């Protein structure tokens, strides 16, 4: 296992070689500014136009509805702040969930400081939102509903199309953060009834620093980044041609191979969950078993702390995550694991395993074996666990 076993594909993925290959011309000879009228610029804008058309087709969108951004975080910020700013005269209430990514949660908190009101809907023990709760939360002054498609920590998948159809009937703008969903769920903006949708390329074997905000024709939100005329004057900044070409290629490959990849990954993930549950005592799967991303397994291992599990696995060449990578600067236990009703002590013990297209059965077997040993070792170091009795207790 010399190169390391990468089970952190929800944090970021390896750039696909074919994506890099598609980008290479734009990292070398075709370096023109896509806004330039001359040959160098025309070569660039041609590639960007083709990429945009391809992305649109793969999402069931129109070409003019795809806007390129610097990533999922910018897309989420733009969608929410842009809607809040544009529609504040109509109302100042936003509905979202308690388990959104920080890109959404922190942005909502900013808006709260500015006088907006945000309802953070609770989820059930499987991490699922009920459409009924959305309906109850909506008020006359609700201007936006934003619900993440799939959760980055426990992989729970929300009923986006249903929420979308309700939002449409009510005439309320509906955004979904589909950053985690895109690698294993076929997205169609019309079937989903979404007005806006965020994506980030590095989550599906594309490059870092490039993302998408889909904005349905007719929806007019305020700009986040102002300046030149790029992206139909909606998002300024010199066009990141290699990034855009890479994103489009990565999306093509993802959609093309999705059925097959999902089948492989799901089989491995189910095998992993089964073995862990059978072979390791005092562990809990966080989140439900249905309506869950095929790549995700999230466990709490009682009586030991998550980061120390992560670091012990790392010493043995296995890369996983405790809580979301984005909040790893923080000491708080995962807000998502808490939101599904996991007690705080167990929330401190959670580990996310996120499989990818390169994951092998051999790697999973090695991981289970290593995990067993690691959990045993750490429990023998823990004041909460009695090795002789083989039992533990939170004091």
């Amino acid at each position, binding site marked *: 296992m010399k190169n390391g076993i990468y089970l952190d594909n929800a944090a970021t993925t390896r750039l696909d070689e074919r994506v890099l290959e598609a980008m290479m011309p734009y990292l070398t000879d075709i370096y023109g500014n896509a806004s330039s009228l001359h040959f160098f610029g025309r070569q660039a804008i041609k590639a960007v136009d083709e990429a945009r058309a391809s992305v649109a087709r793969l999402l069931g969108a129109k070409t003019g509805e795809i806007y390129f951004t610097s990533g999922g975080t910018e897309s989420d910020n733009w969608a929410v702040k842009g809607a809040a700013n544009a529609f504040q005269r109509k109302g100042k209430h936003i509905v979202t969930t308690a388990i959104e990514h920080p890109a959404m949660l922190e942005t909502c908190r900013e808006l709260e400081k500015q006088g907006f009101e945000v309802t953070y809907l609770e989820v059930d023990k499987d991490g699922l939102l009920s459409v009924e709760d959305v309906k109850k939360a909506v008020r006359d002054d609700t201007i936006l509903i934003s619900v993440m498609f799939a959760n980055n920590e426990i992989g729970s998948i929300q009923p986006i199309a249903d929420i979308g159809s309700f939002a449409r009937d009510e005439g309320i703008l509906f955004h979904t953060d589909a950053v985690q969903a895109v690698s294993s769920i076929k997205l169609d903006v019309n079937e989903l009834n979404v007005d806006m949708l965020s994506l980030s390329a590095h989550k599906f074997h594309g490059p870092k620093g490039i993302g998408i905000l889909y904005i349905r024709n007719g929806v007019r939100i305020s700009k986040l980044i102002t300046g030149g005329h790029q992206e139909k004057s909606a998002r300024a900044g010199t066009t990141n041609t290699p990034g855009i070409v890479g994103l489009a290629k990565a999306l093509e490959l993802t959609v093309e191979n999705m059925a097959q990849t999902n089948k492989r990954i799901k089989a491995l993930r189910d095998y992993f969950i089964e073995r862990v549950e059978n072979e390791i005592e005092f562990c809990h799967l966080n989140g439900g078993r249905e309506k869950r991303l095929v790549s995700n397994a999230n466990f709490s291992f009682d*009586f*030991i*702390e998550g*980061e*120390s599990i992560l*670091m*012990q696995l790392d*010493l043995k060449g296995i890369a996983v995550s405790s809580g979301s990578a984005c909040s790893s*600067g*923080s*000491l708080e*236990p995962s807000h998502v694991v808490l939101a599904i009703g996991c007690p*705080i*002590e167990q929330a*401190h013990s959670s580990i996310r395993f996120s499989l990818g297209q390169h994951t092998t059965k051999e790697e999973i077997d090695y991981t289970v074996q290593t995990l067993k040993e690691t959990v045993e070792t750490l429990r*023998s*170091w*823990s*004041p*909460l666990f009695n090795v002789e009795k083989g039992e533990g207790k*939170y*004091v």
Partner: protein
Amino acid sequence: MYSNKVLETFANPRNVGEISDADGVGTVGNAGCGDIMKVYLKIENDIIIDAKFKTFGCAAAIASSSTATEMIKGLSLDDALKIKNADVVEKLEGLPPQKIHCSVLAEEAIAAAIEDYRAKKA
């Protein structure tokens, strides 16, 4: 973010375990905060002749426990109380800012164990 020294110490911590006939035991932290540190001391003539720990916590907490218990072995109680969290951090060749509190816990756990010993003796 962790120094190599922290990683090495965490990979092979010293003094993990309990002392069944400990003269002083100190526990600090709680599971809700994600760290519990329990220090056991064997004391003879006011000298710490053995120290062990059990810790629920992150790599920094475990490394701090290992290093701190290592540092106090052989010291008088008064000298052991002079070991501050900054000394532990230095021995570990640095801790990330948000992990400094782990070294503080180690200092406090030792102080608590010494206090326990003194209270029992008094």
